[in-house]
């Protein structure tokens, strides 16, 4: 095992983590501000990917596809927030879980009804295809590098938004004391719609970006949804910083686990057994990480406020 390979795998882990962050950031904001568990977040990711694929097929432009996916996911977010989600803020978590689970069913089969049962095609633009050579001779995919960059830019943007803008102050106020900001004359239902739309747009963007290197198909949101929940729980619910750290931890654990565990077992076992056991353990690795974090820090790494 060379150091170059290890460096490449670390980049892969970072890239995976960055995309998880886009999902997790919206999820953790929505939970932090509105106290809502949104299982349908993965459906917004799917909507983003499908709209991007359809737009790219129609116009041939990847940039337009990205814009369309952002807009469509935000629109879908606003739509379900105003018709359904809004009624759930005052309910307990159980009602939220059931209602948003019902939304998954509706979104998944609705998408299949509109787009058919076969996966769609979405490819990366020519300008971003191919590889670049990084220092020390690491050859790495340009598109994945761009994904890392996009993730960093959005993370920075979110920190500025939360920390420096009026909207951010309201969001933080909303996390601390919901009744209070209503009393201060902030239009709370508009704030909620806005936060939900922001989270949805991020999910949609992640769907479109990832859709270009994965399969755009019905049900693609569910595995990502579970991972995003793992991320925000590790990081501490409501914390953007936690979501970032959690996402990178999960990304690196998963990627490096898949890479290193079979090799580690190969030192003591015969190869095919080592591959089997190592892979089995690798697929459990992030859940072991999450259980471990929660046992040591029951409110996640950066979680302070009561959930």
């Amino acid at each position, binding site marked *: *095992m*060379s150091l*170059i*390979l290890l460096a*490449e*795998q670390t980049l*892969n*882990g970072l*890239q*995976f983590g960055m995309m998880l962050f886009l999902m997790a950031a919206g999820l953790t904001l929505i939970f932090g501000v509105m106290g809502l568990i949104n299982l349908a977040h993965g459906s917004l990711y799917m909507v983003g990917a499908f709209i991007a694929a359809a737009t790219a097929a129609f116009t041939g432009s990847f940039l337009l596809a990205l814009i369309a996916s952002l807009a469509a996911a935000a629109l879908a977010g606003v739509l379900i927030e105003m018709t359904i989600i809004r009624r759930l803020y005052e309910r307990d978590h159980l009602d939220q879980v059931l209602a948003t689970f019902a939304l998954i069913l509706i979104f*998944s*089969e609705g998408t*299949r009804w509109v787009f058919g*049962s*076969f*996966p*769609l*095609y979405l*490819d*990366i633009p020519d300008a971003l*295809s*191919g*590889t670049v050579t990084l220092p020390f001779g690491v*050859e790495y*995919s340009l*598109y*994945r590098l761009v994904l890392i960059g996009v993730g960093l830019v959005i993370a920075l943007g979110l920190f500025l938004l939360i920390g420096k803008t009026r909207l951010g102050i309201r969001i933080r106020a909303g996390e601390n004391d919901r009744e209070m900001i209503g009393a201060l004359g902030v239009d709370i239902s508009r704030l909620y719609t806005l936060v939900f739309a922001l989270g949805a747009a991020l999910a949609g963007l992640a769907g479109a970006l*990832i859709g*270009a*290197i*994965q*399969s*755009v*198909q*019905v*049900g*693609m949101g569910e*595995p*990502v949804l579970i991972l995003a929940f793992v991320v925000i729980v590790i990081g501490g619910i409501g914390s953007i910083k936690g979501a970032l750290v959690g996402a990178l931890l999960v990304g690196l654990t998963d*990627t*490096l686990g*898949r*890479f290193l565990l*079979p090799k580690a077992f190969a030192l003591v076992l015969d*190869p*095919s057994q080592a*591959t*089997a056991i190592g*892979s*089995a353990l*690798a*697929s459990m690795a992030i859940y072991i990480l999450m259980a471990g974090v929660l046992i040591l820090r029951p409110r996640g790494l950066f979680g302070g406020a009561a959930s």
Partner: protein
Amino acid sequence: MTIRQLFLSACMAAMATGATAEGVKVGMITTLSGGGAGLGIDVRDGFMLAVEQSGRDDIEVVIEDDQRKPDVAVQLADKMIQSEKVDVLTGIIWSNLAMAVIPGAVAQGKFYLSPNAGPSVLAGKGCNPNYFNVAWQNDNLHEAAGAYANSARLTNSFILAPNYPAGQDALTGYKRFYEGELAGELYTKLGQTDYASEIAQIRAAGADSVFFFLPGGMGISFMKQYAESGLDLPVVGPAFSFDQGILQAVGDAALGVRNTSQWSKDLDNPANTAFVESFQAKYDRLPSLYASQGFDTANLLISAVEAADVGDQDAFRAALKAADFASTRGDFEFGPNNHPIQDFYVREVIQEGDVFTNKVESLVLESHGDAYAAECKM
């Protein structure tokens, strides 16, 4: 003869005529909703096309959606057997669902015709005279890929598959025929969508080719990421990841890839030409491997219905075993374990206008059966 005897014989005569007039009732359990629905829809459409073309009105088909859940499939099988009183079951796509349904169904004296899944247990120790596989034994396409690798003089393959029984069978099947060295062997997580880590390892391993079995969305993701990684080692795989239903979603990334199959839309035999044409005319899309298997399954059934009455189990079984139908793959016969003995081809992914499709390159395994037939005692 007493009145009672007369009455009885009248009843029996009525029942006997009733049986022939009733024809055969088929229960199709397949995946029609959720992410894997494309395969089930193809099998169903192929099957129904053949039934329609036969012009017979004595074949009744009951279709139900298993949602790709084994417990739902078992429940539907119970319903078909107990309430619908079907004679023949068919339709299941996935091996794990097949393992849940088939042993119970054949134990209750029903016929099962598999249009897709062929788990090794059911080909070997768990074989049953009432179970016929019209597709392939699960290992077959991977064995063909191994054989192809030899003929293409590939000597240092990197092989990978998801970590579950069908994935383990796939790598075993490949290694059974492949004679070269292994540059590496990897099991991935089932349902995994990102293969950057695996691709990096392939790059580092110094392999001369890649064999992979990643069905459904996993294969699409892998191929797109592989193409984007800049690696250009030849890729070999079973047809599942390069079939008509998903090729459009893979796009350019699949061009030139060699994949193994027992069927291709350009196989030159009259049955296939007619099938491809009529399928396109009826459904306005190109048929897939799964559609061809559904079509063949129905035609096998129709050939048996023509030859024997389903009420006479022994005669019907013999009629099925004879496989006296024109298969879209050309020659087709059943081995001792009721699994196909057929030819396997390697196909190349090409572009015809806007459409990505496959073209037969060469025959790799002729009249090939499976490795488990010897374990089957029936």
